[in-house]
Protein backbone atom coordinates (compact mmCIF):
# COMPACT_ATOMS: atom_id res chain seq x y z
CA UNK A 1 0.00 0.00 0.00
CA UNK A 2 1.06 3.55 -0.68
CA UNK A 3 1.37 5.34 2.71
CA UNK A 4 -0.62 8.28 1.34
CA UNK A 5 -3.69 6.04 1.10
CA UNK A 6 -3.63 5.73 4.89
CA UNK A 7 -4.67 9.35 5.49
CA UNK A 8 -7.19 10.00 2.73
CA UNK A 9 -10.14 8.90 4.85
CA UNK A 10 -9.07 11.35 7.60
CA UNK A 11 -8.84 14.19 5.09
CA UNK A 12 -12.53 13.82 4.31
CA UNK A 13 -13.67 13.47 7.91
CA UNK A 14 -14.64 17.15 8.13
CA UNK A 15 -16.80 16.89 5.00
CA UNK A 16 -20.42 15.84 5.23
CA UNK A 17 -21.02 14.87 1.58
CA UNK A 18 -18.67 14.39 -1.34
CA UNK A 19 -20.29 14.58 -4.76
CA UNK A 20 -18.46 13.93 -8.03
CA UNK A 21 -19.83 15.29 -11.30
CA UNK A 22 -18.94 12.87 -14.05
CA UNK A 23 -19.90 12.03 -17.60
CA UNK A 24 -19.08 9.56 -20.20
CA UNK A 25 -18.59 12.06 -23.03
CA UNK A 26 -16.43 15.15 -22.92
CA UNK A 27 -17.67 18.70 -23.22
CA UNK A 28 -21.16 18.05 -21.86
CA UNK A 29 -20.90 20.81 -19.24
CA UNK A 30 -19.51 19.10 -16.12
CA UNK A 31 -17.14 21.89 -15.20
CA UNK A 32 -19.71 24.65 -15.65
CA UNK A 33 -22.32 22.67 -13.73
CA UNK A 34 -19.92 21.75 -10.89
CA UNK A 35 -18.82 25.37 -10.45
CA UNK A 36 -22.37 26.72 -10.69
CA UNK A 37 -23.54 24.10 -8.19
CA UNK A 38 -20.78 25.09 -5.76
CA UNK A 39 -21.79 28.76 -5.97
CA UNK A 40 -25.49 27.88 -5.74
CA UNK A 41 -25.06 25.62 -2.69
CA UNK A 42 -23.06 28.40 -1.06
CA UNK A 43 -25.85 30.83 -1.89
CA UNK A 44 -28.30 28.39 -0.30
CA UNK A 45 -26.35 28.71 2.93
CA UNK A 46 -24.01 25.72 2.82
CA UNK A 47 -20.25 25.52 3.33
CA UNK A 48 -18.84 24.28 0.05
CA UNK A 49 -15.55 23.06 -1.40
CA UNK A 50 -14.62 22.27 -4.98
CA UNK A 51 -11.86 19.93 -6.06
CA UNK A 52 -10.86 20.04 -9.72
CA UNK A 53 -9.69 16.53 -10.42
CA UNK A 54 -9.29 16.85 -14.14
CA UNK A 55 -5.57 16.38 -13.62
CA UNK A 56 -4.24 17.02 -17.11
CA UNK A 57 -6.86 19.53 -18.17
CA UNK A 58 -8.14 21.51 -15.21
CA UNK A 59 -10.56 24.33 -16.07
CA UNK A 60 -12.71 25.04 -12.99
CA UNK A 61 -10.43 27.92 -11.95
CA UNK A 62 -11.46 29.76 -15.11
CA UNK A 63 -15.13 29.65 -14.17
CA UNK A 64 -14.31 30.65 -10.58
CA UNK A 65 -12.03 33.48 -11.67
CA UNK A 66 -8.80 32.20 -10.10
CA UNK A 67 -5.46 33.04 -11.71
CA UNK A 68 -3.20 30.09 -10.75
CA UNK A 69 0.05 31.99 -11.30
CA UNK A 70 -0.74 34.75 -8.87
CA UNK A 71 -2.40 32.58 -6.22
CA UNK A 72 -0.38 31.98 -3.05
CA UNK A 73 -0.49 28.48 -1.60
CA UNK A 74 -0.74 28.36 2.18
CA UNK A 75 0.42 25.44 4.27
CA UNK A 76 -0.91 24.38 7.61
CA UNK A 77 -0.22 20.76 8.46
CA UNK A 78 -0.91 20.18 4.80
CA UNK A 79 -1.94 22.33 1.87
CA UNK A 80 -4.86 24.67 2.41
CA UNK A 81 -7.44 25.06 -0.35
CA UNK A 82 -7.59 28.60 -1.71
CA UNK A 83 -10.69 30.74 -1.39
CA UNK A 84 -12.72 31.32 -4.57
CA UNK A 85 -15.88 33.37 -4.15
CA UNK A 86 -16.63 31.85 -0.78
CA UNK A 87 -15.83 28.31 -1.93
CA UNK A 88 -12.78 26.31 -0.75
CA UNK A 89 -10.97 25.43 -3.94
CA UNK A 90 -8.17 23.05 -4.91
CA UNK A 91 -6.89 22.33 -8.40
CA UNK A 92 -3.79 20.91 -10.08
CA UNK A 93 -3.76 24.17 -12.04
CA UNK A 94 -2.54 25.91 -8.89
CA UNK A 95 0.71 23.94 -9.35
CA UNK A 96 1.01 23.65 -13.13
CA UNK A 97 0.30 27.34 -13.68
CA UNK A 98 -1.55 26.80 -16.93
CA UNK A 99 1.38 25.00 -18.60
CA UNK A 100 0.78 21.73 -20.49
CA UNK A 101 0.67 18.71 -18.21
CA UNK A 102 1.12 15.55 -20.28
CA UNK A 103 0.81 12.78 -17.70
CA UNK A 104 0.52 9.03 -18.12
CA UNK A 105 -1.84 6.83 -16.07
CA UNK A 106 0.59 6.12 -13.22
CA UNK A 107 1.52 9.77 -12.97
CA UNK A 108 -2.12 10.83 -12.88
CA UNK A 109 -2.70 8.33 -10.10
CA UNK A 110 0.29 9.72 -8.18
CA UNK A 111 -0.93 13.30 -8.59
CA UNK A 112 -4.40 12.31 -7.33
CA UNK A 113 -3.04 10.50 -4.28
CA UNK A 114 -0.86 13.51 -3.51
CA UNK A 115 -3.74 15.98 -3.72
CA UNK A 116 -6.16 13.78 -1.77
CA UNK A 117 -3.63 13.13 1.00
CA UNK A 118 -2.23 16.63 1.58
CA UNK A 119 -5.25 18.90 1.06
CA UNK A 120 -6.76 20.08 4.34
CA UNK A 121 -10.42 20.80 3.76
CA UNK A 122 -12.26 22.87 6.32
CA UNK A 123 -15.54 21.88 7.81
CA UNK A 124 -17.78 21.51 4.75
CA UNK A 125 -21.35 20.52 3.97
CA UNK A 126 -20.48 19.67 0.39
CA UNK A 127 -17.28 18.95 -1.43
CA UNK A 128 -17.93 18.85 -5.17
CA UNK A 129 -15.50 17.14 -7.51
CA UNK A 130 -15.12 18.04 -11.16
CA UNK A 131 -13.96 14.92 -12.98
CA UNK A 132 -12.63 14.48 -16.50
CA UNK A 133 -14.81 12.60 -19.02
CA UNK A 134 -15.05 8.85 -19.24
CA UNK A 135 -13.99 5.97 -17.04
CA UNK A 136 -10.74 7.77 -16.45
CA UNK A 137 -8.04 7.12 -13.87
CA UNK A 138 -9.50 10.04 -11.97
CA UNK A 139 -12.97 8.49 -11.76
CA UNK A 140 -11.57 5.07 -10.89
CA UNK A 141 -9.39 6.57 -8.17
CA UNK A 142 -12.11 8.64 -6.51
CA UNK A 143 -14.35 5.57 -6.55
CA UNK A 144 -11.65 3.65 -4.77
CA UNK A 145 -10.43 6.20 -2.26
CA UNK A 146 -13.17 8.62 -1.30
CA UNK A 147 -15.49 7.35 1.39
CA UNK A 148 -19.24 7.94 0.98
CA UNK A 149 -18.76 9.31 -2.52
CA UNK A 150 -21.89 10.15 -4.52
CA UNK A 151 -22.08 10.71 -8.26
CA UNK A 152 -24.07 13.08 -10.40
CA UNK A 153 -23.98 11.95 -14.03
CA UNK A 154 -24.13 14.73 -16.62
CA UNK A 155 -25.34 13.99 -20.14
CA UNK A 156 -26.67 15.78 -23.18
CA UNK A 157 -29.59 14.47 -25.23
CA UNK A 158 -27.63 13.65 -28.39
CA UNK A 159 -28.05 10.01 -29.51
CA UNK A 160 -24.30 9.43 -29.12
CA UNK A 161 -24.36 10.79 -25.61
CA UNK A 162 -27.37 8.72 -24.55
CA UNK A 163 -25.84 5.33 -25.24
CA UNK A 164 -22.63 6.47 -23.67
CA UNK A 165 -24.40 7.80 -20.57
CA UNK A 166 -26.24 4.52 -20.16
CA UNK A 167 -22.98 2.56 -20.29
CA UNK A 168 -21.27 4.94 -17.89
CA UNK A 169 -24.11 4.88 -15.37
CA UNK A 170 -24.26 1.09 -15.56
CA UNK A 171 -20.54 0.96 -14.82
CA UNK A 172 -20.97 3.14 -11.72
CA UNK A 173 -23.93 1.12 -10.47
CA UNK A 174 -22.12 -2.17 -11.08
CA UNK A 175 -19.20 -0.85 -9.02
CA UNK A 176 -21.60 -0.24 -6.16
CA UNK A 177 -21.26 3.55 -6.42
CA UNK A 178 -24.03 5.79 -5.10
CA UNK A 179 -25.56 7.60 -8.05
CA UNK A 180 -27.52 10.60 -6.81
CA UNK A 181 -29.01 11.08 -10.27
CA UNK A 182 -28.56 12.36 -13.78
CA UNK A 183 -28.59 15.95 -15.01
CA UNK A 184 -29.52 16.62 -18.61
CA UNK A 185 -27.57 19.56 -20.01
CA UNK A 186 -28.41 21.55 -23.14
CA UNK A 187 -31.68 19.68 -23.38
CA UNK A 188 -35.37 19.90 -22.65
CA UNK A 189 -36.33 16.81 -20.73
CA UNK A 190 -35.74 13.96 -23.15
CA UNK A 191 -33.41 11.98 -20.88
CA UNK A 192 -36.07 11.34 -18.28
CA UNK A 193 -37.05 8.05 -19.89
CA UNK A 194 -33.43 6.88 -19.92
CA UNK A 195 -33.31 7.49 -16.17
CA UNK A 196 -36.54 5.56 -15.65
CA UNK A 197 -35.18 2.60 -17.58
CA UNK A 198 -32.02 2.57 -15.46
CA UNK A 199 -33.74 3.19 -12.15
CA UNK A 200 -31.75 6.38 -11.63
CA UNK A 201 -33.21 9.64 -10.36
CA UNK A 202 -33.72 12.32 -13.03
CA UNK A 203 -32.47 15.52 -11.45
CA UNK A 204 -33.71 17.87 -14.16
CA UNK A 205 -32.55 19.62 -17.29
CA UNK A 206 -30.61 22.76 -18.09
CA UNK A 207 -31.53 24.49 -21.37
CA UNK A 208 -28.90 25.69 -23.82
CA UNK A 209 -27.88 29.21 -22.77
CA UNK A 210 -26.19 31.27 -25.49
CA UNK A 211 -25.07 33.80 -22.86
CA UNK A 212 -23.10 31.34 -20.74
CA UNK A 213 -19.64 31.68 -22.28
CA UNK A 214 -19.73 35.46 -22.24
CA UNK A 215 -20.93 35.53 -18.64
CA UNK A 216 -18.06 33.22 -17.64
CA UNK A 217 -15.60 35.48 -19.42
CA UNK A 218 -16.97 38.43 -17.50
CA UNK A 219 -16.95 36.55 -14.19
CA UNK A 220 -20.70 36.67 -13.64
CA UNK A 221 -22.01 33.15 -14.15
CA UNK A 222 -24.57 33.84 -11.38
CA UNK A 223 -26.43 36.22 -13.69
CA UNK A 224 -27.25 33.53 -16.26
CA UNK A 225 -30.33 31.41 -16.88
CA UNK A 226 -27.90 28.49 -16.82
CA UNK A 227 -27.10 29.28 -13.18
CA UNK A 228 -30.77 29.66 -12.28
CA UNK A 229 -31.46 26.17 -13.68
CA UNK A 230 -28.50 24.68 -11.82
CA UNK A 231 -29.62 26.30 -8.57
CA UNK A 232 -33.10 24.79 -8.93
CA UNK A 233 -31.59 21.38 -9.56
CA UNK A 234 -29.35 21.74 -6.50
CA UNK A 235 -32.28 22.83 -4.38
CA UNK A 236 -34.25 19.70 -5.23
CA UNK A 237 -31.37 17.22 -5.61
CA UNK A 238 -29.84 18.04 -2.24
CA UNK A 239 -33.02 19.09 -0.52
CA UNK A 240 -33.60 16.01 1.62
CA UNK A 241 -30.70 17.16 3.83
Amino acid at each position, binding site marked *: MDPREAVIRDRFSSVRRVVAFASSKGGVGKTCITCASALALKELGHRVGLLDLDVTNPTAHIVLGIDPKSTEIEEEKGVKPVEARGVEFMSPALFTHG*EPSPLRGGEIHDAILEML*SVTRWGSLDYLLIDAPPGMSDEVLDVLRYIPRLEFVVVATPSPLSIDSARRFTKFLLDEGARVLGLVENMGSGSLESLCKSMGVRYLGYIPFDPELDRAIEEGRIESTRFYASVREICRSAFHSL
Partner: protein
Amino acid sequence: MHEWALAEAIARYAESVCSSRRVSKIVVKLGTLQAIDREVLSFALNAILESDGIRGAEIVLEDEEAVFRCRRCGATWRYSDVELDEALREAIHFLPEAVHSFVRCPRCGSRDFEVVKGRGVEVAEVVCGDGSEGGSH
Protein backbone atom coordinates in the same frame (compact mmCIF):
# COMPACT_ATOMS: atom_id res chain seq x y z
CA MET B 1 4.58 22.60 6.81
CA HIS B 2 2.80 20.43 4.29
CA GLU B 3 5.40 17.84 5.35
CA TRP B 4 3.10 17.32 8.34
CA ALA B 5 0.44 15.76 6.12
CA LEU B 6 2.97 13.35 4.64
CA ALA B 7 4.36 12.52 8.09
CA GLU B 8 0.84 11.59 9.15
CA ALA B 9 0.56 9.29 6.15
CA ILE B 10 3.86 7.59 7.05
CA ALA B 11 2.87 7.20 10.70
CA ARG B 12 -0.61 5.83 9.92
CA TYR B 13 0.91 3.43 7.44
CA ALA B 14 3.62 2.19 9.83
CA GLU B 15 1.06 1.77 12.60
CA SER B 16 -1.18 -0.27 10.35
CA VAL B 17 1.75 -2.47 9.30
CA CYS B 18 2.65 -3.18 12.93
CA SER B 19 -0.98 -3.27 14.12
CA SER B 20 -0.85 -4.16 17.80
CA ARG B 21 2.95 -4.24 17.97
CA ARG B 22 5.07 -1.16 18.55
CA VAL B 23 6.64 0.67 15.60
CA SER B 24 10.37 0.56 16.32
CA LYS B 25 11.91 1.76 13.07
CA ILE B 26 10.81 3.48 9.88
CA VAL B 27 13.06 3.94 6.87
CA VAL B 28 11.80 6.64 4.52
CA LYS B 29 13.17 7.44 1.10
CA LEU B 30 12.95 11.09 0.16
CA GLY B 31 13.00 11.68 -3.55
CA THR B 32 14.80 14.94 -4.20
CA LEU B 33 12.15 16.02 -6.73
CA GLN B 34 9.74 16.81 -3.91
CA ALA B 35 12.45 18.60 -1.89
CA ILE B 36 11.01 17.60 1.47
CA ASP B 37 12.35 19.48 4.48
CA ARG B 38 14.00 16.67 6.49
CA GLU B 39 13.95 18.55 9.79
CA VAL B 40 10.27 19.34 9.53
CA LEU B 41 9.40 15.83 8.41
CA SER B 42 11.30 14.09 11.18
CA PHE B 43 10.01 16.52 13.80
CA ALA B 44 6.44 15.94 12.61
CA LEU B 45 6.88 12.19 12.42
CA ASN B 46 8.24 12.00 15.97
CA ALA B 47 5.49 14.25 17.30
CA ILE B 48 2.74 12.22 15.61
CA LEU B 49 4.16 8.87 16.76
CA GLU B 50 4.52 10.21 20.29
CA SER B 51 0.96 11.47 20.35
CA ASP B 52 -0.04 7.94 19.37
CA GLY B 53 1.91 6.61 22.36
CA ILE B 54 4.92 5.40 20.37
CA ARG B 55 8.20 6.60 21.86
CA GLY B 56 11.77 6.19 20.69
CA ALA B 57 11.06 4.84 17.22
CA GLU B 58 14.12 5.11 15.01
CA ILE B 59 13.49 7.31 11.98
CA VAL B 60 15.87 6.94 9.05
CA LEU B 61 15.54 9.40 6.18
CA GLU B 62 17.47 8.59 3.00
CA ASP B 63 17.72 10.90 0.03
CA GLU B 64 17.06 9.47 -3.40
CA GLU B 65 18.26 11.56 -6.31
CA ALA B 66 15.58 12.36 -8.89
CA VAL B 67 16.41 11.02 -12.34
CA PHE B 68 14.41 11.43 -15.56
CA ARG B 69 14.33 9.44 -18.79
CA CYS B 70 12.86 10.88 -21.96
CA ARG B 71 10.19 8.70 -23.53
CA ARG B 72 10.77 10.27 -26.92
CA CYS B 73 14.56 10.15 -27.35
CA GLY B 74 15.77 8.11 -24.38
CA ALA B 75 17.99 10.78 -22.84
CA THR B 76 18.45 10.60 -19.08
CA TRP B 77 19.21 13.52 -16.75
CA ARG B 78 19.00 14.55 -13.12
CA TYR B 79 16.82 17.10 -11.36
CA SER B 80 19.94 18.55 -9.80
CA ASP B 81 21.13 19.53 -13.31
CA VAL B 82 17.93 21.45 -14.03
CA GLU B 83 17.81 25.22 -13.66
CA LEU B 84 14.44 26.32 -12.39
CA ASP B 85 13.25 29.30 -10.44
CA GLU B 86 12.17 29.01 -6.84
CA ALA B 87 8.43 29.48 -7.44
CA LEU B 88 8.38 26.55 -9.87
CA ARG B 89 10.42 24.37 -7.53
CA GLU B 90 7.88 25.12 -4.87
CA ALA B 91 5.00 24.09 -7.15
CA ILE B 92 6.84 20.79 -7.77
CA HIS B 93 7.37 20.44 -4.01
CA PHE B 94 3.58 20.49 -3.57
CA LEU B 95 2.77 18.36 -6.60
CA PRO B 96 5.79 16.51 -8.07
CA GLU B 97 3.88 15.76 -11.30
CA ALA B 98 4.04 19.49 -12.05
CA VAL B 99 7.62 18.75 -13.14
CA HIS B 100 6.17 17.76 -16.53
CA SER B 101 4.84 21.29 -16.90
CA PHE B 102 8.12 23.07 -16.22
CA VAL B 103 10.95 20.71 -17.20
CA ARG B 104 11.65 19.42 -20.70
CA CYS B 105 14.11 16.91 -22.10
CA PRO B 106 17.49 18.64 -22.48
CA ARG B 107 18.12 16.78 -25.74
CA CYS B 108 14.81 16.89 -27.64
CA GLY B 109 12.59 19.26 -25.63
CA SER B 110 9.86 16.72 -24.87
CA ARG B 111 7.70 16.89 -21.76
CA ASP B 112 6.92 13.19 -22.15
CA PHE B 113 9.52 11.78 -19.78
CA GLU B 114 9.54 9.32 -16.96
CA VAL B 115 10.59 10.02 -13.39
CA VAL B 116 12.78 6.95 -13.05
CA LYS B 117 13.37 7.47 -9.33
CA GLY B 118 13.40 10.09 -6.64
CA ARG B 119 9.83 11.38 -7.04
CA GLY B 120 8.77 11.84 -3.45
CA VAL B 121 8.16 10.21 -0.11
CA GLU B 122 8.34 6.42 0.02
CA VAL B 123 8.38 4.06 2.97
CA ALA B 124 11.25 1.64 2.35
CA GLU B 125 10.98 -0.35 5.56
CA VAL B 126 8.97 -0.63 8.76
CA VAL B 127 10.29 -2.62 11.74
CA CYS B 128 7.87 -3.59 14.48
CA GLY B 129 8.36 -3.97 18.26
CA ASP B 130 9.95 -7.36 18.51
CA GLY B 131 12.48 -6.39 15.87
CA SER B 132 10.81 -8.38 13.13
CA GLU B 133 10.40 -6.93 9.68
CA GLY B 134 6.91 -5.48 9.44
CA GLY B 135 6.82 -4.99 5.73
CA SER B 136 8.65 -3.39 2.88
CA HIS B 137 7.21 -0.89 0.52
